[in-house]
């Protein structure tokens, strides 16, 4: 799942030195908590096939398609496509909306207030609408949250959990939580496939850390969590197993990069996202 466009769109105001990996992780970690709540609210975990982090990625992907469909709207002889409800750049001071008559209408200039009710007469017909801008990161994230809620609703009754599929040969450990000998062994394996630098980074917790230090900690924690999931909750696609094989033979210094790469393309988009292509538009 290539999320570069949506990540760039959401983080368009960030400093230039923020990497794609960092930006993606920041968005996901901020949004995963909301995803969990939406799942509990709309799609009980036992009925949903997606982990919260997966759900965030799916929502990002759907939002990305909505945005970029507007850049490249399909042209059909007898259909005018609705392209007006989300626009990537507010700064153009214009937005095109589709009217119920099938016509397009450009609203310009845009109202200065965000989300305030507007009343306009277009072709003699009164319309009421609200326009939400997206020129701050907060507003763009709010779009993502809305998409996330829609995705969670669609997840309701989406089918059995993937957990059954995950018990494949790739699973190295079953973390039952009670067998301390097994947990010791898990720690040993976990350490051997992750970077000691990441463990060093997360070792000390301090509220007085600078924002940069805390971001580094958050990133290191994400890599370590990925290592844990590779061992305990591998993806059925086999990607975890392949990554595990690479990690086992890699030098300590190289493991960060491998896990970064793993995180970049995971959690897998797999069946669910493929099934969903063409929906939600």
């Amino acid at each position, binding site marked *: 799942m290539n999320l570069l466009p949506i990540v760039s769109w959401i983080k368009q105001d960030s400093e230039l030195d923020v990497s794609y990996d960092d930006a993606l992780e920041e968005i996901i*970690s901020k949004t995963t908590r909301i995803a969990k709540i939406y799942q509990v609210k709309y799609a009980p975990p036992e009925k949903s096939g997606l982990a919260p982090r997966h759900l965030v990625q799916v929502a990002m992907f759907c939002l990305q398609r909505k945005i970029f469909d507007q850049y490249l709207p399909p042209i059909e002889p007898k259909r005018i496509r609705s392209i007006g409800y989300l626009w990537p750049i507010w700064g153009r001071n214009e937005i095109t909306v589709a009217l119920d008559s099938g016509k397009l209408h450009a609203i310009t200039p845009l109202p200065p207030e965000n989300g305030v009710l507007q009343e306009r007469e277009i072709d003699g017909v009164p319309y009421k609408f609200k326009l939400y801008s997206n020129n701050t990161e907060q507003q763009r994230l*709010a779009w993502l949250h809305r998409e996330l809620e829609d995705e969670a609703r669609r997840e309701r009754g989406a089918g059995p959990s993937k957990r059954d599929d995950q018990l494949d040969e790739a699973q190295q450990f079953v973390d039952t939580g009670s067998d301390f000998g097994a947990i010791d062994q898990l720690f040993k394996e976990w350490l051997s496939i992750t970077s000691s630098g990441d463990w060093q980074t997360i070792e000390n917790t301090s509220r007085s850390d600078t924002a940069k230090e805390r971001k580094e900690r958050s990133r290191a924690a994400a890599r370590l969590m990925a290592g844990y999931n590779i061992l305990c909750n591998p993806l059925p696609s086999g990607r975890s197993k392949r990554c595990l094989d690479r990690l086992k033979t890699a030098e300590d210094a190289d493991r960060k990069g491998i896990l970064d790469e793993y995180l970049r393309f995971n959690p897998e988009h797999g069946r669910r996202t493929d099934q969903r292509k063409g929906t939600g538009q």
Partner: protein
Amino acid sequence: MSQPLEDDLNKRRWAEARFRRFFLGQLDLDEAERVAVAAALIPGLSLDMGAAEEELIEQYLDHRLPPDENTAFEAQYLNGWDPDNRAKLRMRQAVRSPQVQQVLHPAKIRPSPLRRQPILGWRTVALAASIVAVIFATLYVVDSHRFDSLLAMFRGRGASGPQKSNLEQPAGLTASGGLILPAASGGLNLRLGKAPQSLAWIVPDYQRQYRLRIDAASGQEIVSEPLTPKDNAIEYSPPNVSALALPWDIFVLGPVGAGQKILAHYTLNP
């Protein structure tokens, strides 16, 4: 201060006050959603929330949560549906483990246990008592001579004159003030009024030699000579015990010749 900033500040305070109950699953869904959204949208608050969660996990591992919060924590992080929660808990446990500590601080090994046991908790006492009971019962049944020799060993070496038998010892202690280290793999916290005169440890293989290492709070690091098991146990009397201030980190190393890996770790608190 402008209105939006003031609003943000108020929202931040409102959300921060609910972080703990959020993680413990004690908020209703609507309130939890508002907290999560605030954390996502207010700059820096998401990282603060992450720090608050880490703090909560550390408190759990240190047994500093009140009983109701402890129960709620375990429902969320050990028995809940979200695998991320368990992974976060495991990560903080792993950081404390001897395996990770050995890598991070090879020069000075001072690992903390996975989850420190409550001081003189019932499990510790019961475990130590069971071990002593099993050892003595087994030895008594199998070989009364070995029983005598082990008893003699526990009663202290090098003391002049006959030892007064003290049949009622605190669990895990020998008559001479020696400490029997209970079985542990991940690490264990123990408490003793004063530094013990000797340490005894039941070995997994009586044909191998082991070492004990003591890192005292006063800065000394003492490593025993290779200790040969007698009656399935090694015993070590560190020199000049009175100078070794508690707490001690005690490591059982061995077997000798097999890389000297740490077999068990104990923290002995006053």
